[in-house]
């Protein structure tokens, strides 16, 4: 692989990220809600009267001076983001945005990665089996089932699971990442509690995506089964199981792999819905809360993280694809 190619790809990533930060900054500032005015009036009502004191406070917390023109604020924001400083939360001024993300991100990573990996394996396996049984009765009904499953939006799926499994049947908790009565740490009750709380969000993600994986793999398998090299392998007397794995599966999974890496990035966006429905303390739920509060340092920070996740996953998919497919090796 040429380093020039990698550098070019990283340059594109940085340029995209910069554009996204700019657009997000403008969009957030266009919102009619003025959290600074709210903050200033709060502080004023608490007895800090002097405007210069207020301005100093604002600068300390937010890295910017509210009275300055917006383009100055924009450049100041860009510089501080490059320094890794996303500012403080407006609602919880004692916390930095980086702190908030650091406590929230692991929960999101946990459910997003777990669900994507499980869904990918189930879908790929089922898809290949269905591809082999194409045209049969089993194939028809299962394809219909997965198509329906695939058509249900992720928030609809989340609400269905929440209503039936949690509210009606009471089988699993409906909110939070773990119970209040367990001590966080590497102990069994805590781990069990975490798993119990994550089953519904993870299932929601799985149900929302497994149909796509299955249908995709089924289509790829059918297409590869029609390839001459599969017939040629059969004619060489290569056993069926070996053909299914090394000839059919190996080639049918190539497009799936690219989708897999990219989908991990996009699942961060889906996390906004799912975490909100299950009040799960990840960055998605934090984003919704922050939008409600007009806490835009946090909105900006989380948006940048989500976009960066998508961009990095696309980059990883591009750079790793060549290890799987010799045809694109340079």
């Amino acid at each position: 692989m040429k380093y020039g190619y990698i550098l070019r790809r990283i340059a594109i990533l940085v340029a995209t990220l910069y554009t996204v930060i700019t657009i997000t900054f403008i969009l957030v500032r266009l919102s009619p809600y003025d959290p600074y005015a709210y903050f200033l009036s709060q502080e004023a009502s608490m007895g800090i009267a002097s405007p210069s004191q207020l301005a100093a406070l604002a600068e300390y917390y937010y890295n910017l001076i509210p009275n300055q023109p917006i383009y100055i604020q924009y450049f100041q924001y860009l510089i501080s983001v490059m320094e890794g400083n996303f500012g403080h939360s407006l609602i919880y001024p004692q916390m930095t945005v980086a702190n908030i993300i650091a406590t929230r991100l692991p929960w999101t990573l946990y459910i997003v990665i777990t669900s994507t990996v499980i869904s990918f394996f189930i879908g790929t396996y089922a898809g290949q089996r269905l591809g082999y049984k194409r045209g049969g009765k089993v194939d028809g009904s299962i394809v219909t089932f997965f198509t329906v499953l695939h058509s249900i939006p992720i928030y609809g799926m989340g609400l269905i699971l929440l209503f039936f499994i949690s509210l009606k049947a009471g089988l699993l908790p409906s909110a939070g990442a773990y119970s209040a009565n367990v001590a966080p740490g590497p102990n069994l009750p805590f781990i069990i509690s975490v798993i119990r709380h994550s089953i519904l969000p993870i299932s929601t993600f799985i149900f929302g995506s497994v149909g796509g994986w299955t249908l995709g793999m089924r289509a790829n398998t059918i297409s590869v089964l029609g390839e001459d090299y599969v017939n040629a392998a059969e004619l060489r007397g290569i056993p069926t199981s070996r053909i299914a794995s090394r000839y059919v599966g190996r080639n049918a999974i190539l497009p799936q792999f690219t989708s897999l890496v990219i989908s991990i990035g996009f699942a961060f966006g889906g996390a906004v819905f799912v975490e909100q429905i299950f009040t799960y303390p990840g960055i998605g739920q934090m984003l919704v809360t922050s939008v409600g509060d007009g806490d835009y340092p946090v909105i900006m920070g989380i948006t940048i993280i989500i976009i960066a996740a998508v961009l990095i996953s696309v980059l990883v998919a591009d750079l790793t694809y060549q290890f799987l497919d010799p045809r694109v090796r340079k």
Partner: protein
Amino acid sequence: MNLLLSVEGVRVNYRTERGEITAVRNVSFYVDKGDILGIVGESGSGKSTLAYSVLNYIKPPGKIISGSVKLEGVGDLLKLGKEDVRKVLWKEIAIVPQATQNSMNPTMDVKDHFIDTMAAHGQNDKQKILETANRLLEEVKLDPQIVLSAYPHQLSGGMKQRVLIALSLVFEPKLLILDEPTSALDVVNQRLIMDLLKALHQKMGISIIFITHDIQLIKGFANKVLILYAGKAMELGDVNEVWNTPLNPYTIALLKSIPTLHGDVNSVSGIPGSMPDPYAEITGCPFASRCKFAKPVCFEKDPDFLEYKPGHFSACHFSKDIGDNYG
């Protein structure tokens, strides 16, 4: 004694939406040890279907209705179960398929193709496999150092063809079937492949079935020829005998259609008409409607495939007269 393969009365049907069609009609032929049999026919005459039925490898909607394919030392291939056929494939009979440009797994290098193929038949010694691969690739005039680690997309069409020929020889099968091995190649590569096959045939004594629509390729290469028309065997015999004293009007017409380098272009004539509609039921001889010797009996009765001279078979009601008068 010398008989290697004897195919009798093989019939293959394809079930389609418009009805059943017959791709191969009760074809019989045989291959002796050391033979190169050329199978000639127009596109759609059932050449490939016949070749794959010899391997008992007809996929639905196709079906082998009847017949037997007896291979020396194995028995009737059409009576074997799937797993037994798998064991015979490549060890006893190998085929280089028509679509060689796509016959290799794009995510496997050449070396892995050799390893996979030999492992499938119980040879797991990597060292031995590589020795075999090296030797055979050199045999087909390829550089093993470069080719073994190459992926299919890095090889040219002619190279892929030669890799597949090398791959077909790993177990030195008794019979090698080549399905239009030169059709996708330019004349230079065609020549290269033909010379290569000839050398391999002499060196290894392997028997070959060579399928082509190019009747001229047969003349200098094969010692026997089988002529197919609309799925029916029209004539089978020694190449020179068939060329000089054909017994079948279709063969005569076919030979007349070959332009020669020096001859008068006007003496070349095509065969008027076209092959019969596969969906139409044929009662008589399938060639009757295009045959200038046709008599009423030809439209009523399908001629049997009979031996008129030793080793020279033909399916025509008038083969005897033609044999007496041709020339």
